């Protein structure tokens, strides 16, 4: 077990390192970073001063070390578009909005996916099962950003039930959460369905029936509790996907989170902010993957090879 954890942890560290290499080399490919960091009216002495401060007069390998040591401390320089803000400060300021939306989306997708998944397993090969299949197929084929626009068109423009965009009370969150959660619905539903099918076959379910328990209690209490273990281990992956999916959803609904921040930064070629967001997101993404693998190996000993 320790061996497996060590191996997976090393792999995650490698992935983060590769990501930092990519970000660093791209930052240099994009031209002299000083052109972006300094205002247009900066003179040669400004260039020299900032160049010293950032170590840009050093060889590339040293520059990379400086970059890493600063990145570890969360220092990615100042934003070019949002004056007077540090790149990392902007990320911390926007992160709560993203986490709020992602959390709510996860909640919405579980609320939708769980009953459908359970019903499609209990009533296998019936209408419920076809509904589940159609949802799974649409989950793969619908572009998330377009789904957001369609929902906005129907429920905000035509019916006027929800506001079109922005952040406020819960009514602002419903449409973005459905858009963001849509893909997870298909994933969670399939996982619940397959593990429910396994559980429904097992001996203890027969026992609960022999005991004379009501059918709803058998399914929703005894079966679901056991079937929920497998999908639970996937939730961290799903959380990672939600985080990156927020980039698209937030820019559709102008939700002021980190996703919208990074898209605005890309449009303005504000590289400092882009790399801060990307490193933070990649870190979260890779770490959740690591946690899930460890959790999974803990629950299912067959994984530890």
């Amino acid at each position: 077990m320790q061996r497996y954890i060590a191996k997976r942890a090393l792999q995650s560290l490698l992935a983060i390192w590769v990501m930092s290499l990519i970000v660093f080399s791209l930052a240099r490919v994009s031209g002299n970073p000083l052109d972006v960091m300094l205002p247009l009216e900066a003179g040669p002495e400004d260039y020299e001063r900032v160049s010293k401060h950032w170590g840009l007069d050093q060889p590339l390998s040293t520059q990379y070390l400086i970059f890493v040591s600063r990145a570890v401390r969360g220092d990615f320089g100042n934003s070019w578009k949002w004056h007077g803000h540090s790149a990392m400060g902007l990320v911390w300021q926007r992160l709560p909005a993203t986490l709020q939306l992602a959390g709510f989306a996860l909640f919405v997708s579980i609320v939708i996916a769980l009953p459908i998944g359970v019903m499609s397993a209990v009533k296998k090969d019936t209408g419920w099962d076809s509904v589940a299949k159609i949802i799974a197929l649409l989950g793969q084929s619908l572009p998330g950003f377009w789904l957001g626009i369609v929902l906005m068109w129907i429920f905000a423009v035509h019916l006027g039930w929800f506001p079109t965009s922005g952040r406020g009370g819960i009514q602002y969150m419903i449409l973005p959460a459905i858009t963001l959660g849509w893909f997870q619905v298909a994933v969670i539903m399939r996982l619940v369905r397959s593990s429910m099918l396994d559980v429904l076959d097992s001996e203890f379910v027969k026992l609960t029936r022999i005991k004379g328990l009501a059918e709803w209690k058998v399914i929703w209490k005894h079966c679901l509790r056991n079937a929920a273990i497998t999908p639970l281990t996937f939730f961290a992956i799903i959380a990672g996907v939600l985080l990156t999916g927020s980039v698209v959803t937030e820019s559709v609904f102008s939700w002021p989170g980190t996703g919208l921040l990074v898209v605005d930064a890309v449009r303005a070629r504000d590289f400092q902010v882009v790399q801060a967001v990307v490193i933070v997101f990649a870190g979260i993404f890779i770490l959740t993957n690591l946690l899930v693998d460890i959790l999974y190996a803990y629950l299912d000993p067959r994984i530890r090879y």
Partner: protein
Amino acid sequence: MAIMTARTLPWYAPPRLARAMREARRYPLVPIALLTFLLVIPAVLAPQVAPYDPLKGSLAKRLTPPVWEQGGTIDHPLGTDKLGRDMLSRMIHGARISLAVSMVAIFVGGIIGTSLGLISGYFGGWVDALLMRLVDISLSLPTILLALVLVAAVGPSFGTVIIVLVVLLWARYARLVRGETLGIKERDFIARARVAGASHARIMVRYIFPNLVNSLIVLATLQVGYVILLESALSFLGAGLPRPTPAWGLMIADGRELIVTAWWVSMFPGLAIMLTVLALNLLGDWLRDHLDPKLRNV
């Protein structure tokens, strides 16, 4: 009591036609038809079938609604966008762009991934260990973010999009090909080819590769839909193809701010993406079941 036989039933079809229909139902006709009309014909014949230039519009005609809405004209059956460009023509050229991007990206990514997978599986040892770690890492990087950094650094262009997609795609081919190569290289005919004096390169290309073609076709088909979705998402975010390219994702982005006044600008391209990807997924599933059922979890 009347005896009902197949012949007495009113809907009984003559045997030859029935057989033809049964035969036809074995093939994924709906996805193929959708793809032909939505993707292939528009993409191949774009300049011939598009009624207007997709990049030129007249401001006088801007935001004309589609023909069935009030104020629409038959000149622009799907309406025009905010610069007065014909939606139908832009959609048709958009199909060409989607197809071109996904073909080039999958082809390049496929070649790189297949070559590395072959080398990795055939030679094994430290080469294999190194390449497979690279695959693991590449598959664990967050997709959209990688694209955003690249675009922020070098700016949006056709080349950037292709590079991003290739970086994302090659690993799946490498992993698939390596796995299959491991099995194939132990078979007798490989040993015989070796004895007959074939070089390593020749064995990989002439003896192993032909056995991988089915799996590669299935994977490539399943990936076209994924690539079209990804490209349109990138274009939508401003990290894909630059304006004024008539890419479907860009058209949806243009339509987002017009959602209150001109729904058609974003609805039609979105519908096109959805139907195309749906058809590609159905076709890919069918190919997988018929050519290579062991790919179920790819």
